[in-house]
């Protein structure tokens, strides 16, 4: 319980907090005033006119003050602060409802304010009133997430996802969900898991991982176009070629550590991209390669023709129905599946799901093998590894080539899905994003990579859906333009809050009595 002296020191604390909040508000107002509050635009007569954006300006200043207060205030007060902000939002929402304005604008605004305000109020109150409950909930959640049942449930959800969206949203609308969210996120999950072998397990900082992605994509594109080989032959071939390039990169960088390794791998990624741009005879340069053959359903193309997937399925269903004795004019005997591009998308979704799961399975198996333990030992202490008779050259090369192989698989899949590739898809920013997924997720953690990929890739896709923000900030507001800003902010926040990534504990690969997760504070990050 708080004693008298504690209470008085708390009051003086609160005075300081209020003072700092005021200063923050002043600095924010001073900065945001010219940058955000004022906008110069050209009018019809090519004149510059000054417009003001008071709503955006006030919102941002209040947001900054709220963050300052949240950081400064004693833990107990934070919940009340959030609850207070929620209450204010709810009042605003009610005011909108009864303002008598155009319901097309006020209704959605009131809904958004109401929902966000309600959530803030509830979480804030429960946080302050039931302190400690959050910690217990976290422990329970971790236990659930570690169980096999949870893993199989998640797997079931992943398998059901495209079929469920197809059922609920219809063929046309579900493409966006399966393609932009499902496939896009799974590609990055797979790339993250591939890079995780190199960075997370072996502790070798690779800033040029996208090079192997490019090798896989171009291998598939060129070999499929020039020789007409099928996707299923080229998929392993692309992986092997990428692994080969992994070894090529691995040899010169074997002696390099830390910053030097990072610089050389970065340069390697750029070299591959520049070669693809400049060797026009080979790769068609900037123009890229278009018309890449799309994968077929084991020989059946996904098109509207008589031999296409939809027609074949219809034929098959009718054939089965007739043979099972259905009347000739019944529903099943005259069944026709209409052609839709969604079937290919769903097929691609399952292909990338299988590839990603293969990556995870191999990683999990390899961690329990001597080579996997040697990777982690290499990350922990390379000199000690050598003193125990581990050939660090081979160990590093296997890590590089295996990571590269999975990058190559993902690249081949990417080319097959897009039907068009150009060097623009393989810039450094891609490498940075994959690395960010691995680092944010927690180095070495498979679950962490999934969470980070959903947050980063899915989060950006979700920003396209935030149309309601236009009501707040005006019709010109495009949330996707704030991608990089949010990306940076997320990085800073994670580095402050969880410097070792979202899941920093390490699962041991063997145990005598009980499997105890190793705290992240003991785990080394590798020196290159």
């Amino acid at each position, binding site marked *: 319980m708080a004693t008298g002296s504690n209470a008085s020191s708390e009051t003086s604390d609160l005075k300081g907090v209020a003072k700092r909040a005021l200063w923050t508000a002043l600095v924010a107002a001073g900065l945001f005033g010219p940058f955000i509050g004022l906008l110069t635009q050209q009018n019809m007569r090519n004149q510059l006119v000054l417009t003001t954006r008071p709503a955006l300006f006030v919102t941002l200043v209040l947001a900054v003050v709220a963050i300052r207060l949240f950081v400064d205030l004693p833990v107990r007060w934070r919940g009340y602060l959030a609850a207070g902000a929620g209450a204010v939002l709810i009042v605003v929402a009610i005011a909108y409802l009864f303002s008598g304005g155009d319901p097309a604008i006020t209704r959605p605004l009131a809904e958004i304010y109401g929902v966000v305000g309600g959530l803030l109020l509830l979480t804030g109150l429960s946080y302050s009133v039931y302190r400690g409950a959050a910690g217990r909930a976290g422990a329970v959640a971790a236990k659930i997430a570690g169980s096999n049942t949870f893993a199989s449930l998640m797997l079931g959800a992943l398998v059901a996802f495209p079929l469920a969206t197809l059922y609920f949203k219809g063929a046309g609308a579900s493409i966006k969900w399966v393609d932009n969210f499902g496939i896009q996120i799974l590609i990055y999950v797979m790339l993250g898991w591939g890079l995780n072998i190199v960075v997370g397990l072996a502790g070798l900082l690779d800033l040029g991982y996208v090079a192997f992605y490019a090798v896989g994509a171009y291998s598939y594109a060129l070999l499929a176009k020039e020789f007409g080989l099928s996707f299923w032959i080229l998929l392993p071939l692309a992986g092997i070629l990428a692994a080969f390039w992994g070894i090529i990169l691995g040899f010169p960088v074997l002696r390099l550590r830390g910053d030097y390794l990072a610089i050389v791998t970065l340069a390697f990624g750029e070299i591959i991209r520049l070669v693809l741009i400049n060797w026009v005879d080979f790769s068609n340069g900037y123009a890229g390669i278009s018309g890449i053959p799309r994968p077929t359903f084991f020989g059946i193309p996904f098109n509207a023709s008589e031999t296409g997937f939809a027609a074949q399925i219809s034929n098959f269903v009718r054939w089965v129905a007739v043979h099972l004795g259905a009347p000739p004019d019944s529903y099943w005997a005259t069944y026709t599946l209409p052609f839709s591009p969604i079937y290919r998308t769903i097929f691609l979704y399952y292909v990338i799901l299988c590839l990603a799961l293969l990556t995870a399975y*191999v990683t999990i*198996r*390899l961690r329990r*093998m*001597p*080579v996997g*333990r*040697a990777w*982690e*030992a290499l*990350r*922990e*202490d390379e*000199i*000690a*590894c*050598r*003193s*125990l*008779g*581990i*050939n*660090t050259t081979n160990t590093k090369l*296997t890590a590089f080539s295996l990571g590269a192989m999975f990058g190559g698989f993902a690249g081949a899949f990417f080319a097959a899905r897009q039907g068009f590739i150009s060097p623009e898809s393989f810039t450094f920013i891609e490498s940075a994003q994959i690395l960010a997924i691995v680092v944010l997720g927690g180095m070495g953690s498979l679950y962490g990579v999934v969470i980070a990929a959903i947050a980063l890739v899915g989060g950006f896709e979700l920003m396209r859906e935030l149309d309601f923000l236009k009501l707040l900030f005006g019709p010109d507001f495009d949330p996707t333009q704030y991608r990089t800003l949010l990306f940076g902010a997320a990085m800073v926040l994670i580095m402050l809050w969880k410097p070792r990534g979202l899941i920093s504990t*390490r699962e*041991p*690969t*063997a*145990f*005598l*009595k*009980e*499997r*105890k997760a*190793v*705290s992240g*504070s*003991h*785990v*080394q990050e590798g020196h290159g």
Partner: protein
Amino acid sequence: MNRWESAPLLKVEHLTMRFGGLVAVNDLSFTVGEGDITALIGPNGAGKTTVFNCITGFYKPTEGRIGLRHGSLQAWTALDSLTAKSDRKAKVPNGALFLLERMPDYQVSATAKVARTFQNIRLFQGMTILENLLVAQHNPLMVASGFTVLGILGIGGYRKAEKAAVERAKYWLDRIGLTDRADDPAGALPYGAQRRLEIARAMCTSPVLLCLDEPAAGLNHRESAELNTLLLEIREREKTSILLIEHDMSVVMEISDHVVVLDYGTKISDGSADHVRNDQKVIAAYLGVADDEVAAAEAEVAL
């Protein structure tokens, strides 16, 4: 006759190591007897760790040769012909001979079976104690898993081999008294336990020669005494010879059969613990006095 003369396991001959203009080790020759505990002592900066790094392959010596014998004493007859052949290893009936200065560091441990520990402990801190001991058995497990290929497909005896490796790890955990902490990260162990774990990890590579770089540094009296027992037991039960660098004279004098003293990279004394203890040069090197003042200095410290 002494074991280091009658049955040498390791022969260091004319070893010289220069770093630019600095001569860290100068024309050093000594032998390590089979089954002996040999101590390498000397004041700070005498070049002891450099000698260790040369033996274990972390440094390539500027001059000299380092021979190691497996099995029969007959192996030494092949030393000169092996040196002439620019080869690393010679097989003889019932044995083999290695030239360590020609081998890369990991091979010194993997094929010549020389294990080492480090002055500043180098454990895999983020891995559990059991995992540390499993990593040490990397090479046999690698073979058992068909270089990963068979293991990942579930073919062959990897499961069995891993079980045997865990059994071996258990044996060593029992020996160093860490069985209860097998599933804790190595970084969470207290200092003395980390030292013991590093020795156990080195022993899991089944070495013929165990090189310990200041194993008693930072240990208290009781831990130091436990270490003595552990080292004596390793020699008795595992038949592993031990070469150690040590500053703690209670360890050196109590358990060493053979002591080699270095000063400024040169050997100044070589013999049994008693011989070295009474060597004027050693006393001079340690106490930093001229030879004629040794008697006075001795009287002062009541030696």
